[in-house]
C-alpha cells in the first residue's frame, strides 16, 4: 500500500503546489484587504448597499461584513466550489483515468489486493487535498500578524477544515460515480453539476425558504465559511466526513467487485439486463 500511496502522491506533485499556492495567494490578498475595508468602511458599506438585495441575500445578507467572521465568510463563499473542481477531477480520475487509458490492468496484474490498491490511492487523494488546504491555510494565516483582524492562526484553520470536509464529499462522490458511470468525464460532469447546484441552492434558499429542505440534502449547506472561526460545528463536520466515508466505502466495495475495463475499451456501457447473443453452454 505504501508503494501505491507514494506513487499516487507523486502524480499529485504538480497539483499540490499549483492549487495550494493559488489558493494561498487568495489569502495573501484577502486578509490584508480587511484593513483596507475597515479604513474605508463607510464607502464600502455604501458600495455594498448598492448591490441588488437579492444578490446580498444570496450571500447571506452580508450584515456582518464588518466583523472578521462576516468578512471572511464573504471571501470564502466560493472556496468549496473553486477547490471542489480539483476534488471532483482528482476523485473521478483516481481509477477511471488509468482504466480508460488501459494502464490499470497491468497494475492490477501485480500482487496488490484491490482493497490495498484502493486504500493507497484514496489515502493519497485525501493527503493531497489536505496538503493543498494546508498551503492555502498558510496563505490566510501568515498575513494575520500584520492585520487588525482579530483572528488567531489556529482559528483560521477552522474554515479550512470546513472546506476540507465539503470538498471531500464532492471528491468521494466523483470517485463513486467513476465506479458506476460509463466514463470518467460523465462522472466528473455529474459530480461537478451536483457541486454547483448545491452552491446555488444554498444561496437561493436564502431568498426562498421553500428551497431550504432541498438545500439541506446537499453538502454546501453545511459549509460554515468564515463563521467557522467562532467554532467549528462538529455535528456538521462529522456529518460531512461520514458522507465522504460512506461514498468512499461504496466506491471501494464497487471497485472490489466489478470487472476492470481492458486497455482500448475507453468507456464501458451502463450495465443493463440483456440476453447474451449466444446461448449459454
Amino acid at each position, binding site marked *: 500500500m505504501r*508503494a*501505491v500511496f*507514494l*506513487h499516487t502522491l507523486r502524480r499529485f506533485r504538480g497539483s499540490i503546489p499549483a492549487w495550494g499556492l493559488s489558493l494561498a495567494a487568495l489569502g495573501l490578498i484577502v486578509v490584508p484587504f480587511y484593513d483596507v475595508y475597515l479604513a474605508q468602511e463607510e464607502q464600502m458599506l455604501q458600495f455594498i448597499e448598492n448591490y441588488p438585495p437579492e444578490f446580498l441575500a444570496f450571500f447571506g445578507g452580508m450584515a456582518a461584513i464588518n466583523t472578521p467572521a462576516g468578512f471572511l465568510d464573504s471571501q470564502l463563499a466560493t472556496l468549496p466550489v473553486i477547490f471542489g473542481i480539483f476534488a471532483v477531477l482528482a476523485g473521478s480520475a483516481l481509477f477511471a483515468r488509468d482504466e480508460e*487509458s*488501459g*494502464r490499470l*490492468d*497491468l*497494475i*492490477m*496484474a*501485480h*500482487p*496488490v*489486493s484491490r482493497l490495498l490498491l484502493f486504500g493507497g490511492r484514496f489515502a493519497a487523494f485525501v493527503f493531497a487535498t489536505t496538503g493543498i488546504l494546508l498551503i492555502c491555510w498558510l496563505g490566510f494565516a501568515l498575513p494575520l500578524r500584520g492585520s487588525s483582524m482579530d483572528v488567531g492562526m489556529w482559528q483560521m484553520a477552522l474554515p479550512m477544515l470546513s472546506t476540507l470536509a465539503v470538498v471531500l464529499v464532492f471528491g468521494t462522490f466523483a470517485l463513486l460515480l467513476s465506479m458506476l458511470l460509463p466514463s470518467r468525464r460523465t462522472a466528473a460532469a455529474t459530480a461537478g453539476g451536483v457541486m454547483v447546484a448545491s452552491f446555488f441552492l444554498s444561496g437561493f434558499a436564502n431568498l426562498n425558504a421553500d428551497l431550504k429542505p432541498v438545500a439541506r440534502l446537499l453538502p454546501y449547506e453545511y459549509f460554515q465559511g468564515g463563521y467557522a472561526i467562532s467554532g467549528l460545528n462538529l455535528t456538521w463536520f462529522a456529518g460531512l466526513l461520514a458522507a465522504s466515508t460512506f461514498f468512499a466505502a461504496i466506491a471501494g466495495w464497487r471497485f472490489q*467487485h466489478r*470487472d*476492470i475495463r*481492458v*486497455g*482500448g475499451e475507453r468507456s464501458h*456501457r451502463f*450495465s443493463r439486463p*440483456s*440476453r*447474451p*447473443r*449466444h446461448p*449459454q*453452454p
Partner: protein
Amino acid sequence: MPDSLAIQTRGLTKSYAGVTALRGLDLKVRQGEIFGFLGPNGAGKTTTIRCLLDQIRPDHGTASVLGFDAQQDPVSVQARVGYLPGELHLEDNLSGRRILRYFSALRRRAVDRATANSLAERLRLDLDTPIKNLSKGNKQKIGLIQALMHRPDLLLLDEPTSGLDPLVQQEVQAIVREAKAAGTTVFFCSHVMSEVEAVADRVGIIREGRLVEVADTAALVNRAVRHVTVRFQTDVPADALEGVRGVTVLTRADSRNVSVQVEGEMDALVKALAALPVAFLKTNQPTLEDVFLAYYQSDNSPPG
C-alpha cells in the same frame, strides 16, 4: 488441481453487455510447457487471461493458476505470474527505469534489479529514456522486462512480439525458451503462427469462446492436410492412387501428372508411389497457420 497443471479452467463462462466471450472454457496447461493459445480477435484469448488474473470475474466456472483459485486468492496468483498485456499502456511521463522500479515496489521488491538490467541490455533498451519518447516496440520491451524480471513461475504473454523487429522477435523467442528451461510455464497468445509453431510445445485453438482443439504442436501440424504433386516417368493408370489411405486425387492434368491431397500420415502414399515410376515429387509442408485457418474456414470441424 493436479500438481502437474499450471492452469486449469472448468466451464469458464463470461459475458459482457450481451456478448458471450467465453462459453464453458475447459483448459489445462501443464507445468513447464510453452502453451500457444490461438484464436482471432474476439475469440476469447484476452478474456481468458483476464479471468486468470482476476481482472474480470467469470459468470460461471472456475480458474486455478499454479494451484491457487484465481478468484479466491488472486494476490497469490499475481505474485507468481508475469503478465504482458496485448495492449500495453504505460505512464508516459516516467522513464523505463522509474516504471520498473514502481512495478518492483508493487512486488515488494521481490525483483532482482540485475535481471531487469540484463534483460534491457539484451533487448537493447535504454531504460533512462522517458516512455513518451519510446517507439511502440521499445515500450513492448519494457512490458516484457516487467513480466520477466521477478522470475515468475508462469508467464502470461499476450502478443509478446507485437511491434518488435524480427531480430528482437528472435531474441524474445530465445528468452521464452530459456524461461521454459528454467522451469517457467509460458502461456503464449499470438497471431504469428510461425512464432507459436517455433516455440510452443502444445497449442490450443479457441473459437467463439470454446476450446476447439488442443494438441502437441508437431502432431497438429503433422495431422494437417498436405498437397502433393507427382510427375511420373511414364503414363500410369488413372486409378493408380485410388483407394490409398488418406489420399484424395485433386487434379490429373494428364496420365503423367497428378496432384493429390493427403490427410494425416504420408506413409500409405509413399508406399503406393514406391511401386510406380516417379520422376518428381513435391510436398507442401503444412504450417500451423494452415491448421488454424482450416478450423476457421471449416465450420468448427477439425481438419485432417
